C-alpha cells in the first residue's frame, strides 16, 4: 500500500483515507460494498467498463478539488513517478517500463505509431482485435506501406491453444516484424496463449504488441514474464479506475529468461522530455536500463493528476484485497457462469473456448438463440441486450466477429464476471436470459 507520505510526493495535498488492513480477508459481500453499484443491478459487462470503488471516486474528486485553481507546479506530479513504481511493482515491472496513459487505445496507438516499421514489413495480427488496434495498423500501413497478415481466430468451445499458435505461425514470413494480439479477445473472451505466442515471436525475432486492455484487475500477472515488448492496458475496465485511464508496459531492459531478443527500436511519440537535440543513449542489452523510456512516454505536458491518483488508489485496493485472490474469485465466478450457460443453452452455444483451460477467461460469449441463422441477426442480439438492461437491470453486451469458414459476421451475447458479482446474480441473470431468448426465438 502507498503511504500518505509516499502519495504526497506525487500529489502534494493528500487526504486519502487508507481502506484499512482487512481487505485481504474481507468477505466478497463486504468487498461488494466498496463499489458504487446498485444492489438491484447486475453488472456483467466489466469488459466494457468497470465500476469504481467509492474510495477511488473520492480520491478523484478530492484531488480534482485540490488542484483546481491552485498555483502549484503541475508538471512534476504529471510524471506519476511514485504511482508508476507502485503499479509497476504489482505487475512485476519497473517504473521505467510503466506509463499511465489515457486508455488502452492511446497506449496501443503510441506503440504502433512508435514502431520502426518500413515499407515491405509485415505484421501478423487477428481480425478479433479491438478496432483501435486494427485502425492504427491500417494507418501505419497507409503511411508506410506495410502488409498486414490477418488471422481469424477459431471460436467455439473446443478450440485448443495449439491451434491458435499454429494459425499465427502459418502467417509468419521472412518479412514479418511484429506479432500483435489481444491477451483476452473482447469478442469471444478467448484467453490467448500469451506466453506461447511470445515464444513463437522470440523464435522468429519478432516484436510483440499485446492489447492487454482486460488484464489489469482481472489477472494476477507478471507482465515481464509474458515475454512481450509492449502491453497496453485499460485502467477503467477490470482495474476499476476512472474512465480515461490506462497503463502501458514498454520493455526497457533485457531479461533473457523472459525475452532474449534485443530491445526493438521504438520512437516514444508524444514526449516532452525526449532530447531536443541528439538522441537517447543506445538501448540497453542488459537487465539495467540505459534510460527511462517510461519517462519519455509519460512526459506529455500537463496531466489529469486526479485520475492518475484515483487509478493508483484502485490499484492499491487491489493489492490490499490480493490480486491472486481476485483472480481466483473472478475465474471461479466465470466458470460458474459458464456452467449455468451450458446448462441453459447447451455446450455448442458457446463461442468462447471452454474445454482447453488455458484459453478460458471470465468473459464468455454465447449464442442464446437456437435457430442457426439468428447467429448473424444483429437485431436479435441488440434487442436481447437492450431488454436485459431496460426490463431486468442486467448489463451485458453483444459482440460481433468473424468465424473461420463462415461467410457471415456472427454476433454473440457476452457476459463477464468480476469480483463484485455473486453466484446469485449469475443465477438470476442466466435464468432471465434463457427466458428472454425463448421469447425472442
Amino acid at each position, binding site marked *: 500500500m502507498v503511504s500518505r507520505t509516499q502519495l504526497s510526493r506525487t500529489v502534494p495535498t493528500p487526504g486519502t483515507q487508507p481502506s484499512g488492513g482487512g481487505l485481504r480477508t474481507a468477505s466478497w459481500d463486504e468487498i461488494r460494498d466498496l463499489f458504487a453499484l446498485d444492489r438491484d443491478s447486475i453488472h456483467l459487462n466489466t469488459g466494457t467498463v468497470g465500476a469504481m470503488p467509492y474510495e477511488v471516486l473520492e480520491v478523484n474528486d478530492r484531488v480534482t478539488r485540490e488542484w483546481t485553481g491552485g498555483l502549484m507546479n503541475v508538471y512534476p506530479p504529471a510524471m506519476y513517478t511514485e504511482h508508476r513504481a507502485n503499479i509497476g511493482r504489482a505487475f512485476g515491472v519497473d517504473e521505467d517500463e510503466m506509463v499511465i496513459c489515457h486508455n488502452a487505445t492511446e497506449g496501443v496507438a503510441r506503440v504502433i505509431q512508435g514502431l520502426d516499421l518500413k515499407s515491405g514489413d509485415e505484421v501478423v495480427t487477428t*481480425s*478479433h*482485435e479491438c*478496432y483501435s488496434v*486494427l485502425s492504427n495498423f491500417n494507418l501505419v*500501413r*497507409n503511411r508506410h*506501406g506495410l*502488409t*498486414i497478415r*490477418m488471422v*481469424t481466430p477459431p471460436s467455439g468451445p473446443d478450440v485448443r491453444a495449439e491451434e491458435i499458435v499454429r494459425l499465427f505461425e502459418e502467417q509468419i514470413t521472412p518479412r514479418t516484424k511484429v506479432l500483435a494480439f489481444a491477451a483476452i479477445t473482447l469478442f469471444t473472451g478467448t484467453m490467448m496463449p500469451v506466453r506461447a505466442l511470445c515464444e513463437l515471436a522470440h523464435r522468429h525475432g519478432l516484436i510483440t504488441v499485446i492489447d492487454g486492455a482486460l488484464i489489469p484487475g482481472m489477472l494476477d500477472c507478471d507482465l515481464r514474464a509474458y515475454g512481450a515488448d509492449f502491453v497496453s492496458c485499460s485502467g477503467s475496465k477490470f482495474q476499476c479506475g476512472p474512465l480515461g485511464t490506462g497503463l502501458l508496459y514498454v520493455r526497457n531492459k533485457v531479461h533473457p529468461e523472459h525475452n532474449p531478443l534485443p530491445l526493438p527500436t521504438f520512437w516514444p511519440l508524444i514526449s516532452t522530455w525526449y532530447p531536443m537535440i541528439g538522441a537517447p543513449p543506445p538501448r540497453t542489452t542488459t537487465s539495467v536500463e540505459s534510460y527511462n523510456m517510461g519517462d519519455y512516454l509519460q512526459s506529455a505536458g500537463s496531466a489529469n493528476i486526479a485520475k492518475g491518483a484515483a487509478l493508483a488508489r484502485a490499484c492499491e485496493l487491489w493489492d490490499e484485497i490480493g490480486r491472486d485472490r481476485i483472480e481466483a474469485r473472478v475465474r471461479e465466478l466465470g466458470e460458474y457462469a459458464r456452467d449455468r450457460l451450458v446448462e441453459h443453452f447447451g455446450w455448442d452455444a458457446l463461442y468462447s473456448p471452454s474445454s482447453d483451460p488455458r484459453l478460458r477467461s471470465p468473459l464468455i460469449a454465447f449464442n442464446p438463440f437456437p435457430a442457426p441463422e439468428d447467429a*448473424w*441477426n*444483429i*437485431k436479435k442480439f441488440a434487442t436481447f441486450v437492450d431488454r436485459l438492461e431496460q426490463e431486468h437491470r442486467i448489463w451485458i453486451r453483444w459482440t*460481433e*466477429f*468473424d468465424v473461420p469458414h463462415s*461467410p*457471415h*459476421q456472427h454476433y454473440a451475447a457476452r457476459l463477464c464476471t468480476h469480483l463484485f458479482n455473486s453466484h446469485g446474480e449469475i443465477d438470476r441473470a442466466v435464468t432471465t436470459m434463457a427466458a428472454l431468448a425463448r421469447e425472442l426465438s
Partner: protein
Amino acid sequence: MNDDTRSGGTLRLRGPADLEPLDAALAQQSPADQLRRLWTRQLFTYAPVENPDQWQAVEPVPDLAAAVPSTYNAGLGASHTSYVVHLRPGVLWDTEPARAVTAHDVVRGLKRLCAPVARPAATSHLTSTIRGMAGFDAAYAAAVPDPASDAQAFADFQNTHDIPGVFALDDETLVIELVRPALDLVDLLALPCTAAAPVEYDAFVPGSGELSAHTRSNGPYRVAAHEPGARLRLEPNPVWNPESDPVRARNLDAVEVTVDHSGAAGITESILNGDADLPWGIELAGSHPLPAPEPGHRLGYSLDPYLAFNLDAAGDGPLSDVRVRRALDRAIDRRALAEIAAASGAGTSVRVADAIVPPGNDAAREPGAGPAPGGDPAAARALLAEAGADSGLELTVVHPAGETETAMAHSYAADLEKAGVSVTLRGLGPSSLRRVLAGSGPGRSQGWDLAALSWSPSWFHENARAFLQPLCSRGVPGGPNPGGYGTPEVDELVDRALRSVEDPERRDAAWSEVEELVLDDVPFLPLLFQTPWAPRLRGTRVRDAVAMPSLGFSYDLATLRLAAEEESLENPG
C-alpha cells in the same frame, strides 16, 4: 432560395434522349437517371452540392438507409465484408393504400439487376463483390434464357431464389455480405440501378413498356403521363414526405419532358426563347469559348468517345488480328476529334485519350505515358500491309446520331479511308444503338464492326474499377464492352486488383497491368477524355440549379426552382 423564386411551375425539358425504359433496373449512365432520381430511391445517394470539389459532392449519403454503415455504428464489421443497413422510417410507395418501403423491396431491386433482360453494366461490379450474386446471376440466366419470357418466369425465379449475401432481417433491416472488402460498396449501392422495387413489379417483365406504364414512386414526384418516345410528365407524389428524404425537395408543380430531335441549335433556341427550361439528353453549355479551358473541378474525366471492336463477330476475319486493330488505332487523328468536341458547344474540357482510365480517376496513368495519338494513315497502311489486310477491308461503324458524334464519325471514317479502309457509318438513335449493341454476342454480328461509345465515372473516389472492370472484362450485352472482349489473364488481374483492396501498392500494380495488357490487345480505341467545365445551358427562369457529378453533371431536378415569370428575363439564375 432567391427572392424571385417560388414554389411551383412546370419545369420543361426538351431534347433528343430516350425516355425509356423507366425501369431503374436497366439504368446505365443514361440521361433518364436525372429523372429517375425524382421517383426512385436507393439505399444511398448523393446530395446536391454546388462546388464539385467539395468532398460532399461525391460522398454518398443515406437515402433509403438511415445511415451509411460504419464500424462506429455497428453497420460494418472489422473485416469489411458484412454490412448491416437499417432503413429510415416513413418512406412510402405511392400504392393504394400507401405502403412503407421495406428491406425486402431493396433485396428485390438487387435481384432484378440480374434479370436477363436487365443486367446494366453495374451488375458486374456487384456480382464480383456481393457474396453469391454471381451464382444467382448465372442461375437466373439459365432459368430464364428467353428474353421474351413472360413476367411470371422472372417473378418465379426471383421469388424462389436468393442472393446468399443479401437478406432482410425484417422489414427495416438488411444485411449485405461481400466476398471481400470493397471500399466502393456504398457508391455501388448509390447507383440508380440499385433502386428499391415494389412487389407490384413482379407482374411485369423488367424494362417493359407495361412496367413503364405502372411505375411506382417513392420519391417526390411520380409519373402522371407517359407517351413512349415522345413525352413524360411528372407530378407530385402525394405520399412523399420531405422529412423522410434528406436530399430531395419538391419545388415544382410538374416536370415535363418532350423528346425533340431538332438538334443542338433548335434546342438551344427553344431554351433561349423560353419555350423550354433545360436541354434533355444533349450536352449544351451556357457558354463555350475556344479553346476549351481546363475544368474548374478536380473530378475524373470521362472516356468520351471510344470505339469498341466487335470481337465476338470477328471470327477469324481481319479484326481478330491485333495487328489490324493496332493499324486502325494509328490511323485516327484524335486531335481533329478534340477540335470537333471543343467546338461542339458542350462546354467540355477535352484531352486526347492515351489510355483507358481518364485523368482524375483512380488508376489513371500519368499523361503522356500511353500510345501516340495516331493520325498517321501512312503508318497505318504499312501496318495493315504487314497484317495482310491492306486491301478490301470494309468496316461498319455504328455511332450515336447526334451532331457532334456524327461529325466525329465522319472525321475518323476519313482517317480510316486514308489508310485504305472502306467505312460505312450508321448513325443511330439511343434506343436503336442500345438494341443493336445489346443484340451482339458470340456468333451474332448485328451488322457492326466498330461502335462509338462513351463511359463516365459512375462514382468519383476509389473508382479504379469503374472503367477497367466493365470495359475490360466480358460483361453484359449492351454494356460498355459490347464487342465481347475478355481474356482469362485480364479477368485474373481484375480479380487480383479487387482482392488487393488492403494492399494499395499491389492493387494499383494489378490495375496498371490490366490497362497495359488491354491497351496491347486493342479491343477498343480510346479517342478522347472529356469533362464539363461550363455550367449546362438553362433557361432564364431556372434557379438553384446544382450540377451533380453522379448524374454526369446534369442538374438536380429535385432541388431546383423556377423564377416567377416577371423576374425570369431580368435575373437569370
